[in-house]
C-alpha cells in the first residue's frame, strides 16, 4: 500500500538548545539554513516548539526546519517526527535527553563542543542505529551566544539572523550534509567570519568507526 503521507523530497532539521540563553541561536540555525534553501528555490518552513516552554532557563528546547523540492504537505504538523539532521547548541544535551528520537536512516548529528565525538557518543543511549555521522565544531570559540527575546513569538529579530554562535553551527550542518550551498548560507548569516571558520574547522566522524572502537 502506498503511504499517503510520504514526502520523499522532504528534509527535517531539529535543533536542540537550552531555554532562554540559546533560544535565538537555535532559531537562527533553522532560519538561516531554510532561508538559504529558499534562495535556491526550495519550499521551506522554520519555527520554534512552544510546547517545550522555552521561557525557563536551561530547559531543553527545540527549533525546527523543513526543506523540500515539492510543496510541503505536512506544514501543519507541529513537531519534526523523523529528523534527517539534529543539531545541539550545547554539548550537555547528549546526556539525559532523547535527542535522536525518530531519526531517519543516515541522519547526521551536529554538536557545538570542544570535546571529541568519541567522548560524546558514549552518552547517547538511544537511537544511534540510524545515525550516520557526528559533526563537532567549537562554535562558542567563533561567536558568542546572543541572549535576547527579540525575535521570540514571531516578532522581528533586531539582532540579526546568524549574528551569533548559530551561524557557526549552521555552517557545520552545511559542511556535513550539503543540504544547501555554503554560498547561499553566507548570503543569509550576519556573522560570515564565524560561518567560514566553522565550515573550515568542523570535524565529521563516521559513527561506524565509533561503534567499532567502542
Amino acid at each position, binding site marked *: 500500500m502506498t503511504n499517503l503521507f510520504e514526502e520523499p523530497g522532504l528534509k527535517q532539521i531539529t535543533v536542540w538548545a*537550552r531555554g532562554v540563553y540559546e533560544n535565538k541561536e537555535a532559531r537562527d540555525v533553522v532560519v538561516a539554513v531554510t532561508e538559504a534553501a529558499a534562495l535556491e528555490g526550495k519550499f521551506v518552513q522554520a519555527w520554534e516548539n512552544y510546547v517545550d516552554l522555552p521561557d*525557563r532557563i*536551561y530547559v531543553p528546547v527545540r527549533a525546527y526546519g523543513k526543506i523540500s523540492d515539492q510543496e510541503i504537505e505536512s506544514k501543519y504538523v507541529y513537531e519534526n517526527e523523523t529528523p534527517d539532521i539534529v543539531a545541539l547548541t550545547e554539548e550537555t544535551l547528549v546526556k539525559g535527553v532523547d535527542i535522536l528520537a525518530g531519526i531517519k536512516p543516515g541522519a547526521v548529528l551536529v554538536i557545538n563542543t570542544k570535546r571529541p565525538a568519541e567522548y560524546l557518543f558514549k552518552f547517547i543511549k538511544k537511537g544511534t542505529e540510524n545515525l550516520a555521522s557526528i559533526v563537532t565544531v567549537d562554535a562558542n570559540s567563533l561567536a558568542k551566544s546572543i541572549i535576547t527575546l527579540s525575535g521570540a513569538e514571531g516578532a522581528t529579530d533586531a539582532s540579526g539572523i546568524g549574528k551569533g554562535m548559530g551561524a557557526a553551527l549552521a555552517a557545520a550542518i552545511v559542511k556535513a550534509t550539503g543540504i544547501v550551498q555554503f554560498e547561499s548560507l553566507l548570503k543569509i548569516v550576519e556573522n560570515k567570519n564565524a560561518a567560514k571558520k566553522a565550515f573550515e574547522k568542523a570535524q565529521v566522524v563516521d559513527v561506524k568507526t565509533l561503534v567499532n572502537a567502542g
Partner: protein
Amino acid sequence: MSVPVKEVPFAGTVPSPKTENEGMITGNWRTRRPVLDADKCTNCLICWISCPDSSVNQNADVVSFNLKYCKGCGICNEVCPVGAISLAPELDFED
C-alpha cells in the same frame, strides 16, 4: 475554597507533602554540576534553604545533592559562605 487535595489538578501544583515529582524531572537541564568540598562544609544549610528545586539533601555531617532534580542553576555555589560548593561541567562526569 475547600477542594480535597486529590482533586487539585496538576499544573505546577504538587500534592504536599511530597519530595518527588516524577512529572517534572529537571536533572537534564543541568550543564554544570555542584560539587561539595566536604572538608569545608559546616552544615550551615544556607544552600539547603536557598535551592529553588529542593535538591540539597540534609545529612548528619555535610549536605549532598539530589542530581535527579538539580538543574545546575548555581545558586548554592553563590550563597555558600565558606566556598564549599564548586560547579563542574556536567559532561566531565560519566554517570
